[in-house]
């Protein structure tokens, strides 16, 4: 059953070749790093100990993987069945996002082979401890959430039954873990009180992080499924796109209110006019990531077109990336006398990891029953939780 092989409408050997080249290119710096140390291939320094990998792979990676828990929650907890067909791709994207985070940390950490220390000598008060534990457990949860696709492919009935039996608790656990670590990424920055610019530093940073992750979840699903749809020749229904698009301005509206309120609490609202040049970053983030999408997505005629919806989602994603880079790089003070711009090898590693994920997504669409709403499919897998 469920032998859904997507019709091979388009070949893109060039795309595959580029992705493979990126993966290989990304491996070179890894070798250098393990022989000569981080200083030999990155521009990280004592003045800027966290760079591109933390900002992009960790901060953006985790947030952009939020589609996994928002969609799984919407479909399995709130039973919004119309989004069912994108739940599985969303979970896969999330799983790959978290794998990417872990792989990036294997490069970024000084001694990744001791990562298990986090289990044996934990400091439970550390926000990073919480992030670490949640990322590891949530990756496992995502693997289990996605596993039916693999079991179905190979007709493994027994594990399929087991996973389906625990599906709802699993999804709820995933939502809990996501809530915790999406917000804890904000808590992590609370400790850098003296280093993070007052435009972004507020005690409710964890709440803002959670809220923006929930907002970007649906946007990322729209963005990603449209792209894979284009590349692989299937189509996401307009109803789904519009449904997701409708949710975005609501969540972003709450986010905007919270963000302003947080700055009010901190008495830093005046800085948006005075703190040049940082206020430009702030305005860019607010206008691109919040105000524009709210205006666009509340417009009915805008929501009619899938192309518009796609670009709207892209803007939300861009805004989130800007926000995460602001708080974890641009507005996080360096020690005096240092400067930082990522080396090409830092870029190569991040690009290689993204290419990895894209290759796996491509393979998954080729080999696994991904789109549960494809016609010709009888009992849709994973739809029932007994």
């Amino acid at each position, binding site marked *: 059953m469920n032998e859904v092989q997507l019709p091979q409408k388009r070949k893109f050997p060039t795309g595959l070749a580029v992705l493979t080249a990126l993966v290989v290119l990304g491996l070179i710096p890894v070798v250098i790093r393990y022989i000569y140390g981080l200083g030999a291939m990155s521009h990280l320094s004592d003045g800027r100990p966290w760079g591109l990998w933390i900002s992009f792979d960790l901060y953006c990676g985790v947030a952009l993987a939020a589609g996994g828990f928002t969609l799984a929650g919407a479909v399995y907890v709130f*039973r919004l069945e119309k989004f069912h*067909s994108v739940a599985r791709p969303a979970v896969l994207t999330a799983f790959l996002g978290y794998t990417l985070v872990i792989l990036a940390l294997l490069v970024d950490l000084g*001694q990744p082979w001791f990562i298990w220390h986090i289990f044996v000598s934990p400091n439970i008060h550390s*926000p990073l401890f919480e992030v670490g534990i949640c990322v590891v457990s949530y990756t496992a949860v995502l693997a289990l959430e996605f596993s039916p696709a693999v079991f179905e492919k190979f007709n493994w009935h027994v594990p399929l039954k087991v996973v389906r039996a625990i599906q709802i608790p699993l999804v709820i656990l995933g939502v809990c873990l996501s809530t915790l670590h999406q917000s804890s990424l904000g808590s992590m920055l609370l400790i850098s009180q*003296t280093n993070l610019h007052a435009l972004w530093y507020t005690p409710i940073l964890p709440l803002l992080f959670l809220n923006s992750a929930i907002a970007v979840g649906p946007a990322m699903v729209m963005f990603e499924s449209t792209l894979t749809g284009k590349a692989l020749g299937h189509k996401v229904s307009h109803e789904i796109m519009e449904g997701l698009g409708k949710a975005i301005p609501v969540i972003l509206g709450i986010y905007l209110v919270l963000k302003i309120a947080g700055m009010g609490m901190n008495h830093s609202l005046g800085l948006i006019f005075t703190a040049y040049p940082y206020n430009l970053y702030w305005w860019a983030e607010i206008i691109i990531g919040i105000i524009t999408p709210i205006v666009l997505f509340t417009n009915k005629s805008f929501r009619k077109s899938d192309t518009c919806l796609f670009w709207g989602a892209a803007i939300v994603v861009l805004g989130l990336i800007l926000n995460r880079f602001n708080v974890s790089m641009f507005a996080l003070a360096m020690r005096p006398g240092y400067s930082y711009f990522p080396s090409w090898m830092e870029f190569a590693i991040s690009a290689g990891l993204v290419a990895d994920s894209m290759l796996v997504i491509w393979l998954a669409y080729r080999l696994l029953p991904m789109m549960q709403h494809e016609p010709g499919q009888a009992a*849709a897998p994973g*739809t029932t939780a007994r």
Partner: protein
Amino acid sequence: MGVGVLYDATKCIGCRGCQVACKQWNQRKADQTSNTGSLENPPQMTAKTVTKIRFTELEYNGKFQTVFTKLQCMHCEHPACAEACPVAALQKRPEGPVTYDDNRCFGCRYCMVACPFGIPNFDWDTPIPWIRKCTFCFDRQSGGLKPACVTTCPTGALKYGNRDELLVEARARITAAPASYVDHIYGEKEVGGTSWLLLSPVPFDKVGLPKLQEEPVVINAERAMSMVPPVLVGVAALMTGFYWVSKRREQNGGKKNQKPEKQGAVKK
């Protein structure tokens, strides 16, 4: 209250004996540097140099002065690094020192991001790197010795002792010679107090020490972390509740949430 060190910049002659003694005791190699036109060397602290004397030339009170500042870990009373460290490699000892455990650290460098003084440094040039910072010679102190830098200081610019007593002494020195000092003991109240205390003839921001609040920097993070267990329970309960309600509504024949897809129904 634990031990501390009082550094008096008016007594320091910039000999940098403390730098050398520190390297000897902790077996830290020399940093490769080049001539920067100053006797201050190395220009920045590194994993190899965990203490150094900063030279600041400035005009203050109509007088040209060279002011020395000893830089090292301040050993905060509420250290951000120890709060940040996910594996408790950095710990505040009841005796006063903030120590570092090689056997726990896996090199995440969160301590470097968290520290308000910018102190912990990282071995960038080795495949097996550690964080390095002043440990207040905790090993020497455990054996009844003073820290290496204090032991070697030839002018008495460094004084080791009980932190409370040092604070009294620092206050007395300022009172006795108000013209020689600014009326500020750096480390008395900064980020909730530090074990190391500094006296200076010029304001501390003029020698490049950060102006810090009196509230410990860890407070907001601590508050956020204390909310984790209730949030976990709350979200779990809420989600289970939502599931129960939506499931019931579905079973009661409500089709509110269910619209068949165009391509074919999802549900059986």
